[in-house]
């Protein structure tokens, strides 16, 4: 999470634009939801987020089987919301948040009131918590074990002699306190088109500008596209690195172990 005095500087807008375009699905499907507002155990209002309000189930008991409602109405999501539930949820969260907490702790404060409402005041199909991608517990433990509290990492995608997109993050005491791109190197080293040499010179320049780099990952646009499309990107990263299609420099021992374990961790 972010440190309260995080610096987010020298973000090259072209780097962001290219990364966003690369990561955004070309034709995102328009998702439709049905929201059923309920009060005193009766549906009082139904809204299809594409078609508009309707009197679907008006006055009836809230449905138990939201999946069946989704199928009946041809929507992707169904939410059944008790009239006072949003107020209860917000009140629960706000009474627990304070400015001495880290951002992570503040976000986590939402968990308990959310858990209290989900399944009672707010029911959602499909179950959003179950639908969230979850790492196996052992994978989480490995990640935690191998993640240092203080380090700086850079990821750079090269396009010939140019940096196509990049991200540099410095973690201090477990929180990001610097986020930037290679634009912070202005004017930056002259690149040659040789990935290994360019990686070395970019790391050197970053170290003289911002401090020690613990991990650097350098790839081509084709490499990035391969990783994005791959169901297990960390495993794919390990494979590409072993074939020297991706340059990892510096390549600390923890990262070597992590990539070696990637196939086992199924991520």
């Amino acid at each position, binding site marked *: 999470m*972010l440190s309260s005095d995080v610096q987010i500087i020298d973000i090259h807008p072209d780097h962001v634009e290219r990364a966003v375009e690369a990561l955004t699905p070309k034709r995102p499907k328009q998702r439709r939801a049905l929201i059923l507002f309920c009060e005193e155990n009766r549906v009082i*209002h139904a809204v299809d987020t594409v078609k508009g309000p309707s009197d679907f189930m008006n006055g009836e008991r809230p449905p138990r089987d939201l999946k069946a409602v989704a199928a009946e109405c041809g929507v992707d999501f169904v939410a059944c919301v008790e009239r006072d539930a949003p107020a209860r949820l*917000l009140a629960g969260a706000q009474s627990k948040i304070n400015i001495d907490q880290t951002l992570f702790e503040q976000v986590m404060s939402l968990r308990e009131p959310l858990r209290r409402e989900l399944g009672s005041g707010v029911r959602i199909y499909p179950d959003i918590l179950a639908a969230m991608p979850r790492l196996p517990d052992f994978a989480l433990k490995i990640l935690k074990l191998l993640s240092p509290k203080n380090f700086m990492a850079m990821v750079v995608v090269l396009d010939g002699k140019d940096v196509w997109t990049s991200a540099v993050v410095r973690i201090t005491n477990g929180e990001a306190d610097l986020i930037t791109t290679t634009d912070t190197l202005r004017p930056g080293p002259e690149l040659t088109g040789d990935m290994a040499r360019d990686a070395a010179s970019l790391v050197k320049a970053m170290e003289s500008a911002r401090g020690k780099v613990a991990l650097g990952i350098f790839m081509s646009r084709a490499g990035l596209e391969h990783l994005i499309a791959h169901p297990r990107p960390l495993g794919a990263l390990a494979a590409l690195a072993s074939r020297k299609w991706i340059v990892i420099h510096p390549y600390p021992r923890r990262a070597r172990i992590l990539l070696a374990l990637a196939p086992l961790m199924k991520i």
Partner: protein
Amino acid sequence: MSVSISRNGVEIDGKVLPLISGEAHYWRHERKDWAAVLDGVVEMGFKFICTYIPWSVHEIEKGRFDFGDTDPRKDVGAFVDMAGERGLFVLVRPGPHINSELTFFGYPERILRREELLMRTSSDTPAIIPAPPRFFPAPSYASEDFYSEVAVYFDALRPILEPRTHPNGPIVGVQADNEMSFFFRTSPFDVDYSAPAIGLFRRFLRDKYEGEIDALNRAHRSNHKDFDRVMPPRRYEPCEMSALPWHFDWCAFKEFYLYYGIKRIADMLRARGLSEAFFFHNFPGGQSSSPFHIPMTETAVDAAGIDLYESRKNYPLIRDSVRLAAGTSRLPFSPEFGSGIWPWWKPLFLKDQEFATRAALMNGLKAVNFYMIADRDRWYGAPMARDGSARPSRFRFYANLNRFIRDTRFNEFSMRNDVLLLSVREYERFEQIVSLAHPVEAGLLGGVPRDWLTDPKPPAGMREPVGMLYRRQWRAMMMGFTQAGFPPALADSSVDLYVLDKFPVVAAPSFEFMSMALQRNLLVYALKGGVLVLGPRIPVFDEKMRRDTKFTSHMHEPVGYRDRMQVGGMIFERVDLFNPKRPFLSEGQDVCSYISPTEKGSIIHLGFMFQDYTGYDRSPGLAAIMKRIAAVAGLKARYTSSDPLIETALHERGPDRLLFVANPTGEPRSAAVSLGDNETLSDADTGELAAGPAAKINLPEYSVRIFNIHGAAAAKV
């Protein structure tokens, strides 16, 4: 030696300058880079530069401030001087709220630790603002102790700002606080329920009812012994229609609360030697009119504008926000217009900035501060990097824009609108009162129209769910007039009568109740010769839900009702039928709309609900109805597009004409735009010519083209 604002910009010592500005934050740049940033601003052609002055950055500890003594980046005085040396005028925004993506929005942390200074929610919790990198509790602008703290900071600013304010220095504009909006928590029953806020509510009621508790009791149907016992509503409970005035008074108070905060801050700054500058405020854009109140705010500051950070995919929101500001404010101004974006928000790229800027000018924006003009901590996408070096394509865009505004004297042009569509404040308040999203601001829920999320059951005694119907009727009127070739001006219904008088046609959705002041204004407008369009209902109650109407002698009682009715291929709903002398719309014997002549004008009553039009729909039937309405006023559409999804806007300055043509869709389109006899168009960017009578114009996806209109007919229009 004076500074004032006019419709065309800022008048400084008798000379009117277009208010086109760029924002840079001195404390976020290395001192050595200030010159490059300011030189870049000048090179792009800006005449104004704007900056926040953050309380939390300058305050070292309570009562001790660093204005450059320790950290040279904090020398705001030197920054203002350097801007002045380059011929730039300066706008300052000293907060105390500045947001600016600063942790705690620019308030010193110690302020947020004092519970007695904070807002409370209707659930009696602190009002937490979920803004990275740290959520924080919001302060209350009803707290006197809060203003006492602010006064210490403003006192410290005085020796720096006063000697640099016009005519002694380059500061010509001052913003009083920032995005006053309960920190974007605009749901009526969310905040502020702190003790000072409830006290202010009671004071507001005492003033409104002139100290007469009986008058309040009659309005609220209550039996309070004195004003100190009145409590605010904390949620909407389905109720009798007669209980609504209590809720309406709370909404009106929340509008007053924002005005009160802005006025307090503006007065404090004026009292500290800044009174020669013009004062302004910026409301967040894209939200409902209430709790924002531009006409009331403009009694506290000279101009109240709207902030806009919109992508090219949000044309309707850009159009409607800008037109509402253009129709309501003294100076259509966006004190923050996205030039880049903060990292935890939806990305905004150059193609968004280009489209949004041109679309805003097309729809009447006359003054703008591009936020930001140089990248900085927690910001990217500006035309300059943090060190002041140009990001060439972005830099070029703003340089060309300034050149266009200067060469055409664009600030002197006015958008031609023959139709005014009103945003009716009492219906928008009601829509918020009955929102089922409470306490979440409905506008935040993923683009679902807020009227869709309202309680469909009207209060007992009210005929219809006005919260569900108002905006739907408004949208249909907006789309119909637009596609008929009469792009309407928009205005808040609280504007003065003289604003209405400028338009041959004024339209407003209307229901059973309407404030007596608005009823009076609308009737006087129609009596004086205007064509007034109302419907689906003619108001028979005032804002206190007392049976009272101004329209009795002009309107017809319904003689029948249909749930649905087909007229000329269109489906109308909730249809009243009439037996009038002058039918306007009918099917067979069934008349659902009529014209009622007044002394010199007329009232057209559309006694039905239109269907719900959202997004980019086409409806020739709807456009045909609006054309007939315009014909009653003797209006004829000009520069219409053959493609109803392509919008046009005419801007005029004497005989000079500019025509904006916009494609707000994600596909390239081409359209034939009708021109007058012997008229031709030339593209203001490329010089490309197009001739009439139907000029074929190609438009790439999400694009706005600007044309000069040439030809003898243009001068005659």
